[in-house]
């Protein structure tokens, strides 16, 4: 038994059933297009012994190697397709029983897919994490502030000097937070606002590491025009050269298909 794995909507007109890639997520079957009006869906056959509901559940529960292999394969196929076409990526493991159901889905979402394709035309997604090595960042501030404190202590009485020293730790903490906010705002303005045609801010950024000194301060997904890619990358490189001395760096991944910018407004249209 076989199903149809749907990768993405393709925003250009194709000959129906044209082969796009020789190997799909199930490498026995090629990726081809199913047309509907002005766009199509990139799909490939998959064996339901591997991609059926029970098999999927089993693989996800107990086979992380399978998940990694298929996740990278899903992502890679959409990326390759996005090199030459506008794509609206579907979520991992979206599988249909037959072509008729895929056509029905394309028909139901027709107007929203048209709007999204217009929005993402010639653009791709980049993800930026502003990462901070807190120990390094703190050390720089402590060094600067200690010099300032020493100067201030010279002109103070013994009592005032004692109180000033007591406040030092709190001052440092406040200064660190102020400097971090200021650095993040500066990066946001010079990168996200300048290059991003749309921005999605992740309010709960996670950077998976057990190192307690490494903190992810901010995470943004940006929709960037493909024509501006070089100047965007140049800017990131320039900023990283400057901020690395402070214990900060921008962790950049991309170009991704526009996963964060292709959200449907509602459930399937009727």
């Amino acid at each position, binding site marked *: 038994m076989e199903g149809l794995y749907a990768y993405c909507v393709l925003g250009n007109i194709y000959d129906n059933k044209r082969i796009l890639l020789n190997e799909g997520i199930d490498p026995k079957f090629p990726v081809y297009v199913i047309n509907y009006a002005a766009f199509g869906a990139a799909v490939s056959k998959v064996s339901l012994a591997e991609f059926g509901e029970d098999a999927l559940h089993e693989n996800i529960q107990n086979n992380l190697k399978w998940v990694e292999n298929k996740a990278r394969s899903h992502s890679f196929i959409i990326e390759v397709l996005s090199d030459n076409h506008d794509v609206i990526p579907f979520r991992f493991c979206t599988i249909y029983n037959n072509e008729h159901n895929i056509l029905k889905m394309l028909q139901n979402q027709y107007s929203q897919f048209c709007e999204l394709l217009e929005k993402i035309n010639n653009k791709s997604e980049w993800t930026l994490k502003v990462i901070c090595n807190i120990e390094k960042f703190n050390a720089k501030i402590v060094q600067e502030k200690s010099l300032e404190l020493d100067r201030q202590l010279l002109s103070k009485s013994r009592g005032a000097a004692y109180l000033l020293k007591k406040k030092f730790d709190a001052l440092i903490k406040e200064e660190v937070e102020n400097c971090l906010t200021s650095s993040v705002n500066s990066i946001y303005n010079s990168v996200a606002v300048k290059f991003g045609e749309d921005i999605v801010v992740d309010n709960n950024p996670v950077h*998976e590491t057990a190192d307690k000194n490494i903190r992810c301060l901010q995470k943004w997904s940006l929709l960037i025009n493909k024509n501006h890619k070089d100047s965007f990358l140049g800017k990131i490189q320039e900023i990283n050269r400057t901020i690395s001395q402070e214990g900060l760096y921008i962790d950049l*991944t991309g170009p991704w298909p526009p996963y964060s910018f292709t959200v449907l407004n509602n459930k399937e249209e009727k």
Partner: protein
Amino acid sequence: MSVARASQSSSLADVLEKILDKGVVVAGDIKISIADIELLTIKIRLVICSVDKAMEIGINWWQTDPHLNNLAKPEEDKRLSEKIERLEAQLARVTSNLLGV
């Protein structure tokens, strides 16, 4: 600045975040359940943190095992080359003794 394909160069956590949390959700006939997605996200974070934690406390044997890490192979090659040199020198000495040179 060269950037490799995101799907190959990014961490599995980053790839999964994109393809599980983002992208268009349409009502496929078969799809992963929300419970499975949540479980998977937790598992990935645990695996990554476990590897980092192990390295932090000095457990990193897989980095120096030539069977598991290509970077460890030059060390092994160097060791074997030195051993061959020692054996060749020893053989030369024995041979010259036997020949009475």
